[in-house]
């Protein structure tokens, strides 16, 4: 299983904070996970997850979308950060 989390604008656009997703052998990278999420969710999910500047975090570290995935990982999607 993968834990998938969404924050800020993306959480609101999807009306979803967190999902559990079955990890399978074809899901090699964060990119593959996005394709799978859009395959299930449709256009609304494509629009939210493929907008420019989406930040991807794997196990709470920012990564590129070609980063490999393994079972048990936590993946998060969020817009650029605005702290301080």
């Amino acid at each position, binding site marked *: 299983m993968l834990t998938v989390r969404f924050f800020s604008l993306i959480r609101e656009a999807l009306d979803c904070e967190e999902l559990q997703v079955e990890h399978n052998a074809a899901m090699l990278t964060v990119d593959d996970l996005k394709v799978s999420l859009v395959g299930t969710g449709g256009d609304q999910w494509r629009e939210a997850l493929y907008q420019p500047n989406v930040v991807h975090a794997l196990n709470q570290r920012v990564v590129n979308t070609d980063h490999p995935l393994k079972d048990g990982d936590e993946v*998060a999607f969020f817009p650029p950060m605005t702290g301080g």
Partner: protein
Amino acid sequence: MSVLVQESPFSVDSQLRILLASNRGAGLVTFTGYLRDFSEAGAIEALELEHYPGMTERVLEELGALAARRFGLRGWRIVHRYGRIEEQDPIVWVGVLADHRHEAFSGCQFIMDTLKTKAPFWKKEFMRDGRVVWVQSKLDDTEREQAWQEDVYE
């Protein structure tokens, strides 16, 4: 050498006392960020700060440790709120101790400039006219953070 991320308001005086009790240094620099009553979107009533629990604390711990190594800090403390923040409340407080003023000023500015774009917080503004607006990241903030990577201040 510590991080505090909390929902409730904090006192700047008590944070300063905690920093000073833990370390000694010849130079102390602090920064306090308060909620402004205006933004590009207009007059603000309140702010809601969302964050990524766990990642937030880790990013801030690593940032403080990095600043300590880079500028030879003797002590540092980073405090950041989340949740609903009212006008004129402190949002963020950074304090650093060093042997010399240059290291103290630079260390504090480096932490603040980096935190703006690297710590997983997102601001939502509640405007006086009733609108609710997610704050967009600013190119200026990204450029300031990148400038530290290019060492333009050193």
